């Protein structure tokens, strides 16, 4: 139960953080569009719980605010980067889709669908070369599952025997296009198996299942030095980006994994956790907003 409560606390913080980012975005404080991770929290927190930040490295997609937080990156620095503020991870050079914090094991998120996957193979190669017993993990969606970069890296990781955990977060939607429509073969776990990867399905609605599958697969990669593949079934509770006119979501079943877990933990315990998460997220985003925007003079210019 302690583990589930911890999972719920971290996931609730990420949810609250994203909702505060949405409010800031709506008020015009974000330079561009923000892609929220609502619905993915349980799966992501469960997997990151088994990783050691800085030693292990992960890469994520454009929808990675929650992953950075799950790896323990400073929420104020994450919020400040998303909102283009002075205290941002990269002083506003990167932004929402380019969060970079290898000091916490969050190597990079990415604006190109699937491009983060081979980069994680590089972190795995470093771990293997240095003999550090570290592993790498890479998170991508069902949209990215059809990208050459992802398919090639599944093959490469097996061929070179890299300690790399692939995490396919299947929310059934690539932007606004359904995975059923876009995938030639609907069984993406079978696809991974055909590359010779050890595979496991994760139920992203079920905290206990997520924790068990995550622990098992992280342990397999660490002990064997070989790659493995998780398909986590998760909902996408928000649009592709915040503010999108997402009529298509009406056709998309969307039970909230956090509500299920809250029911399991009991109303009183979960409400207390939620209140704490809400306060912490409010503070982080407020602190970031107080930082002021980065002035152009701060940008080092390289001239030919």
């Amino acid at each position, binding site marked *: 139960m302690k583990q589930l409560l911890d999972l719920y606390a971290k996931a609730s913080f990420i949810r609250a953080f994203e909702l505060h980012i949405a409010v800031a975005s709506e008020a015009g404080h974000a330079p561009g569009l923000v892609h929220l991770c609502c619905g993915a929290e349980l799966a992501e927190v469960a997997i990151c719980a088994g990783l050691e930040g800085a030693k292990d490295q992960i890469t994520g997609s454009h929808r990675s605010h929650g992953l950075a937080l799950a790896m323990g990156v400073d929420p104020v620095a994450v919020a400040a980067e998303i909102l283009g503020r002075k205290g941002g991870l990269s002083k506003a*050079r990167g932004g929402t889709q380019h969060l970079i914090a290898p000091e916490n094991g969050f190597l*990079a998120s990415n604006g190109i669908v699937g*491009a983060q996957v*081979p980069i*994680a193979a*590089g972190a795995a*190669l470093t771990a293997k070369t240095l003999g550090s017993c570290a592993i790498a993990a890479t998170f991508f969606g069902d949209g990215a599952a059809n990208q050459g970069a992802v398919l090639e890296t599944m093959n*490469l990781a097996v061929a070179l025997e890299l300690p790399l955990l692939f995490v396919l977060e299947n929310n059934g939607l690539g932007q606004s296009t359904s995975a059923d429509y876009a995938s030639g073969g609907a069984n993406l776990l079978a696809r991974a198996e055909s590359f010779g990867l050890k595979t496991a399905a994760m139920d992203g609605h079920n905290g206990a299942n997520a924790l068990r599958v995550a622990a098992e697969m992280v342990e397999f990669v660490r002990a064997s030095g070989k790659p493995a593949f998780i398909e986590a079934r998760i909902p996408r509770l928000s649009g592709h980006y915040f503010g999108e006119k997402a009529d298509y979501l009406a056709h998309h079943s969307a039970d909230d994994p956090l509500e299920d877990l809250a029911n399991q933990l009991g109303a009183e315990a979960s409400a207390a956790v939620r209140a704490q998460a809400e306060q912490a997220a409010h503070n982080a985003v407020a602190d970031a907003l107080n930082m002021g925007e980065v002035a152009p003079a701060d940008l080092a210019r*390289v001239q*030919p």
Partner: protein
Amino acid sequence: MTIAAALNAAHHQLMDADQNILVIGEDIVGGAGLDGSELGGVFGVTAGLAQRFGKSRVIDTPISETAFVGMAVGAAMTGLKPIVEVMFCDFMGVCFDQIFNQAAKARFLSNDRVAMPLVIRTTMGAGDGSGAMHSQTLHGMLSSVPGLEVVCPSTPADAAGLLKSAVASNNPVVILEHKGLYGENADTDPDLPPVPLGKGRIVSEGGDITVVAVSAMVQVCQLAAKALAARGIGVDLIDPRTVFPLDKELILKSVEKTGRLLVVDEGPLCGGFADQVIAAIATDGYRFLRTAPQKLTPPQTPVPYGRLLEADWMVDENSVTKKIDEILYEN
């Protein structure tokens, strides 16, 4: 020592000195996995490395450029110094995202919190009947990508020395080696000292015209300069060696002396290296120019296959002397 031998020796020296240097690519060990029959890369540049340093540091990959260039990017971000070989620069089409979005941008996007000590070696150039997809010259296109450094060596010393500086750099560096130059022989210091990035070389001196060329065009222009010297025409021949960042100062100094500029390049007629040099010098050295700056490149078509077609497509010594005569006598 040939360029191929100098590159091979430099790889041995570098890998010997730094355990974190890995070499990654297709067929760089080769030989179908049979020990003792290694191919050492299709041009032999990586021969013997696997035997000496082992296959954990000299890694053959599947034919999967996106995956292995991306892997090299991630390895560079996490502490290794990969030298990755893309067999022909034409193949960069299939992995360009990892080059121009990932390798080129990581340092910037991290606000310099991650380094990118990545070297991509690749081949370029026409003249051996390899056809349109194994013969291109893409240094100009690559140098237009913010974040990349691009070098095109023309001698054994420069090839080895620029490789050493590229490995030492925290920026991603693309080295384009001309297929037609691997056998190019020259007396070379066996220590193969580093050659700084961004510094050009005066190949020969003369007072009538400045000619800028890299890679195989340096040899072509040397022959032309020799022929013109016999007729009393002096060519100041400059090999920038690094395409980006360009050694503009060296070229400007020469143009101040000669008042004329010709860029000879194997890249495209439009938007390539030749245009970049002319734009830079016309902007900053306009007051020195007595005639309009000129370029000599192949026509704006893919590289043709037939022997006569390819020979006609390429820039040769005669076309260079003819172009210089035109510039000098029309003005």
